[in-house]
């Protein structure tokens, strides 16, 4: 349906032809006919740069050197492999991305490319490619897929061109205008998906901020001081500040040192964030200024304020990047042998990467801030150099923990808009979409945030309206160069970029889609997988259900031990433990007790109450509680697939049940009304039966018939350390008595 001929696209829109080298054009024209039949679904504005036939794509599933032949293409959007075999339909993943097919890699999604010659793997660096090309190409993607292509069967000329093309377009620095979104938006008809339908607040208008202020009953004002970006290009046009902050204050340091309002707690205290003042200021001036700003915060809120400086307590962006690089490497696996060899070192490599520890630190810091707001009723001011990196992670986490609205899908999307997009997170630089190495520090800051949210999700799944799949898909979408959400460093940056390139062109500004236009990527059936079927909407459900549950428990009365069964609702008195704490505050018993811990009381009182999924949510932070996001990281590793299992199994069971209930409801309706009334019907995903699904559902599919269990290949390794015991016999009366 999106089959705009590539030639047509080019002739009418000359503005981007300049990115296509003349060589590319020649090849393209030569093979135009061939490709058109083979590649019918180019997106609007997409053009093929080069292609090669007879490329072999290795099938990694069976670890052999087998594979499928096909055509490898490089367009201005993606690297694509089109299989010669037509039967690829049945192996297609269960939920299809409308923009990308199974073997498509967006150019901005390429992480590393390796060339293999004579079994030697060599990292390929852009700008250094000579005329030689490797016989095998390994492409590692930012969404953790790994592709192996063999070029030895392709024509030499084609192979050379495709290799150079891929390297040039994915590994070399480019300008923002080269990003596919621009040619797409110039060509595609304006997005039909109207924003009215989605309830996501974009925080681009004064109204959105007012709505948010009203919702949380925040006592602040919306400032238009930066309308048309007159004060600062990094700030949004509208933002919220305490009443006492004047436009002159904002102007003074171009918005630096201004406490921006994030969210208000129901008690009245609020969360603010602030960028550090420029260092050049004289001490006296900046101190006085800061005092005034802090006064401004406390004045309106009637609460004391606590300043949290993130630079002192959380890792630097470079460390973040370093740690993630190590961590990611654990999942980019080339072969079965490598999988099993690395399996033996799994725990130590995981710990060495430090990634889980960073996640824990962020969550812990967020809990501290929550503690201030929730227990101490103290406003918190988060301070960071630019107030747009870890500041965003923490402010959004705090809001998710405290406010159930942000655990709904539209609430979560609004939160990302508020804290990240309007908050001026430099997505373009941090994601390094343009491959400009020297310019800014790339760091997976937004991913870190998603990781933290996932930890909360896996610990308290019923509290979230969206699913794990939603988070995974969102993390993938970062690397699709189409969404305005992730393409710019600030709103000003976006607004200028979207202005028509040439003033003489009689065109309206480009209208980039937002990532929240999910229908651009997925049909409604696939989107149903974004909803968490375990979500508990209201804290208290139907009373009749409660009763039945209680009756069941009463069976225990006939059994031992119920004698001492306490009433579950027995008062949750705190005084008793407080006394004990007082006793032990001075005299500690060993190292076991740690009553000085600041958030401990928050946890205690939180755990004392029955868990309310619509209330405060705290993460568990102990070693075993922080886990690896299996779905995201292991979904492409064939050895790690659980055939018929995985956490998706429970989700499916609930979905099945929900479908059945809907059927019954319809049945009841039909029978009682005697007519076909139309009940609101959300499509329930029905795929293959549970047992033949992989744990990576919905991301990968596999032939049930071809499934064989993965058997570790290195059993004999690394069990040598306890040999003295190992040599002992099982049945040894002679050694008894020895410990």
């Amino acid at each position, binding site marked *: 349906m999106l089959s705009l001929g590539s030639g047509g696209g080019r002739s009418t829109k000359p503005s981007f032809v300049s990115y296509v080298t003349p060589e590319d054009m020649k090849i393209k024209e030569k093979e135009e006919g061939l490709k058109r039949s083979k590649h019918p679904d180019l997106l609007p504005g997409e053009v093929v740069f080069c292609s090669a036939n007879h490329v072999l794509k290795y099938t990694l599933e069976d670890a052999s050197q087998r594979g499928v032949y096909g055509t490898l293409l490089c367009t201005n959007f993606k690297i694509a492999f089109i299989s010669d075999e037509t039967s690829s339909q049945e192996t297609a993943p269960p939920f299809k991305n409308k923009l990308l097919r199974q073997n498509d890699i967006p150019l901005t999604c390429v992480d590393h490319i390796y060339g293999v010659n004579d079994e030697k793997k060599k990292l390929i660096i852009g700008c250094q490619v000579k005329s030689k090309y490797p016989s095998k190409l390994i492409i590692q993607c930012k969404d953790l897929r790994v592709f192996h292509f063999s070029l030895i069967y392709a024509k030499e000329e084609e192979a050379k061109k495709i290799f150079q093309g891929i390297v040039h377009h994915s590994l070399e620095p480019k300008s923002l205008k080269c990003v596919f979104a621009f040619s797409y938006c110039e060509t595609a008809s304006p997005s039909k998906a109207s924003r009215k339908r989605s309830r996501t607040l974009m925080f681009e208008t004064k109204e959105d901020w007012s709505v948010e202020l009203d919702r949380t009953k925040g006592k602040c004002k919306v400032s238009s001081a930066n309308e048309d970006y007159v004060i600062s290009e990094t700030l949004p046009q509208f933002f919220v500040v305490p009443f006492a902050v004047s436009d002159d204050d904002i102007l003074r340091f171009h918005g630096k040192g201004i406490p921006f309002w994030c969210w208000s707690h129901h008690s009245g205290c609020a969360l603010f964030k602030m960028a550090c003042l420029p260092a050049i200021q004289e001490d006296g001036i900046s101190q006085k200024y800061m005092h005034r700003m802090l006064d401004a915060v406390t004045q309106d809120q009637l609460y004391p304020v606590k300043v949290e400086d993130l630079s002192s307590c959380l890792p630097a962006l470079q460390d973040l990047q370093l740690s993630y690089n190590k961590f990611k490497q654990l999942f980019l696996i080339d072969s079965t042998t490598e999988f099993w060899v690395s399996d033996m070192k799994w725990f130590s490599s995981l710990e060495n990467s430090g990634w889980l520890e960073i996640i824990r630190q962020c969550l812990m810091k967020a809990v501290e801030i929550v503690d201030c707001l929730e227990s101490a009723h103290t406003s918190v001011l988060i301070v960071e150099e630019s107030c747009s990196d870890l500041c965003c992670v923490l402010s959004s986490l705090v809001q998710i923990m405290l406010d159930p609205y942000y655990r709904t899908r539209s609430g979560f999307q609004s939160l990302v808009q508020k804290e990240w997009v309007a908050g001026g997170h430099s997505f373009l630089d941090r994601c390094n979409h343009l491959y400009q190495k020297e310019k800014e520090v790339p760091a997976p800051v937004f991913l870190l945030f998603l990781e933290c949210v996932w930890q909360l999700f896996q610990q308290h799944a019923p509290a979230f309206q969206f699913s794990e799949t939603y988070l995974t898909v969102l993390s993938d979408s970062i690397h699709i160069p189409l969404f305005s959400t992730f393409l710019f460093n600030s709103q000003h940056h976006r607004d200028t970029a979207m202005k028509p390139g040439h003033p003489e062109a009689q065109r309206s500004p480009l209208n980039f889609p937002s990532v929240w236009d999910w229908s651009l990527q997925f049909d409604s059936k696939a989107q149903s997988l974004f909803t968490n079927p375990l979500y508990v909407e209201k804290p208290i459900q139907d009373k009749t259900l409660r009763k039945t549950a209680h009756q069941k428990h009463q069976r225990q009365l006939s059994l031992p*031990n119920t004698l001492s069964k306490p009433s579950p609702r*027995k008062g949750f008195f705190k005084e008793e433990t407080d*006394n004990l704490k007082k006793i032990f505050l001075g005299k500690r018993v060993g190292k076991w007790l740690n009553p000085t811990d600041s958030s401990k009381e928050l946890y205690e009182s939180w755990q004392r109450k029955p868990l309310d999924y619509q209330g405060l949510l705290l993460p568990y932070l102990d070693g075993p509680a922080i886990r690896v996001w299996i779905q995201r990281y292991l979904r492409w590793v064939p050895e790690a697939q659980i055939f018929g299992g995985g956490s998706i199994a429970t989700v499916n069971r609930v979905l099945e049940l929900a479908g059945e209930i809907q059927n019954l409801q319809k049945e009841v309706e039909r029978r009682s009304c005697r007519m076909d009334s139309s009940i609101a019907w959300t499509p329930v995903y029905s795929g293959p039966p549970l047992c033949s699904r992989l744990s990576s559902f919905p991301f990968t599919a596999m032939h049930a018939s071809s499934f064989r269990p993965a058997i570790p290949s290195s059993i004999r390794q690394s069990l040598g350390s306890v040999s003295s015991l190992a040599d002992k016999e099982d049945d040894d009366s002679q050694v008894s008595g020895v410990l």
Partner: protein
Amino acid sequence: MEKLTAGAGGGGYSSEQGSAVTGVARKPPRPRGAGVGSSRQPSVETLESPPGSHVEWCRQLIAATISSQIAGPVSSEAISRDYKALRDGNRLAQMEEAPCFPGESIKAIAKDVMYICPFTGAVSGTLTVTDYKLYFKSLEREPPFILEVNLGVISRLETIGVQSHGENSCGMEIVCKDMRNPRFAYKQEEQCKLEIFENLNKHAFPVSSNLPLFAFLYKEKFPVDGWKVYDPVAEYKRQGLPNESWTISKVNLNYELCDTYPALLVIPTSIKDEDLRRVVAFRAKHRIPVLSWIHPESQATITRCSQPLVGPSDKRCIEDEKYLQTIMDANAQSHKLTIFDARQNSVADTNKAKEGGYESESFYTNAELTFLEIPNIHVMRESLRKLKEVTYPVIDEAKWLSNVDSTHWLEYIRLLLTGAVRIADKMESGKTSVVVHCSDGWDRTAQLTSLAMLMLDSYYRTIKGFEVLIEKEWISFGHRFAVRVGHGDVNHTNSERSPIFVQFIDCVWQMMRQFPAAFEFNELFLITILDHLYSCLFGTFLYNSEQERVKAELHTKTVSLWSYINSQPEEFTNPFYVNYENHVLYPVASLRHLELWVNYYVRWNPHMRPQMPVHQNLKELLAIRSELQKKVDELHREASTRSLSSSSDQGSSPSHSATPLHTTV
């Protein structure tokens, strides 16, 4: 929501140590946390001695007694008047007394004992010792603090005396088999305290003091008789046995052939008695190859045995070779037989040097021998000991992963699962019969055969089926429970003790984690089984062999664990259960998918509040469904009585919805 059910289940005390160990109608402890985030311990503390050391223990004891003296008045000031009156009166002792099971009797009571809780601090109360449990209750906290430790779980008792402020204080440490070491402190002078220790010593180790195990005193009645769960003939019939190749033999009816095997054995039909005698003599402990499971389609079989007595001189036994050939021939689908030797190759060689050994591929034609390289019981015991070190009482968060790694516990779990997957795969994909053995064929062999059967046969993944599996592969085939657990035995250093069965249940839990919808039972079921492995409340895991059990008249004199469980199956049912039927489960034996079973090993730590089960929502959905179902049925009935509409358009959907959600492959 979760906390409410936890309270109802028994974890609702303020105690961080629930009392599921008592094994009564209680959920596993859902401990109430004292708080998370203690990760940032002041660095000064690293200078102190490790928490387990003796010095540290003494220091704690002194600190506890001192603080109770100094802080005493402070605390009573804060306590309300009513409470004070209560405390001084006799009612307090009554309220802190232990509730008893039918058949249980109180042996000693001591007041003003201090429990030094590693998580929430010292608390004083009344300590009661019965012939089944140790019970500590304190009304100092609200809700009352309760600690219950059944005596069966005690591995050893230790006391120390400390001089402080001119008073003799005494400390008692109770080292438990279930990963905790509760500690108590009391003043020595009082006579009753001495009584406590003596009684504890006597009743915790009844076998050593010539007393009966508590299971023989327990008088509880259950509506269901768990001893009827396993009937070998019925189970073999379910498998389609006997058939033309296999017979249910009564040759061991009086346990004369092999005293550690059950009375009924499934062996090849064609085997002659005198040949069988030769095979018996050639296998260690007379444990000949017998059938455990037969594949319903391919007729491939899992047979189990002990090692052949090959010895250093490479002895042969023609009858044994023929016997294995017969086993192979019984399966027409394959001309191979795979022998899985669970041991490490090197250890098998050592065994060969002294009497034992393994089948030589040159004598056993068509047989291929594979070593699964699983270390022995001593290695496993050591591994669990290390695991206790890194999980109790505190977890070092920063080094959690490497600490777990250093115990090798999960690595051994991985080895076991790998072995079982290979067996299952050989059976399913290779259609080849397998023979499994280790040295004696009662530890690793039982682990492997039962895990493989769990993967291959969905029946064993039901509650009843799993009970049958344990009764069959473990209890009847002579896993030496009494020796491995050390029921009632004071000799805690006995090197025959090993957590082999715990390891098996851990493997099952790992499978359950990977296939959350494939098992009819839940985590509580597994934890309950493990708690009663030690408790000696039920007769199920007592003794080493069927012969010993018959002699002790276990089935008439004790209660079965399955009586308790099957009387309230809904407690132990997994609401996500979907019958996978003939689908073989292959767990992924990769450390990436294995996780430490925190809800079992680290359950005493209040920070480890169990993962919120998502069951509640599902249970509600199930309730809604059944309600709707009822409504539909009612309407259907109404309609048919009025006979208003044609029957054809009503027929299908109610019946469709009524069928349980079974997914077939």
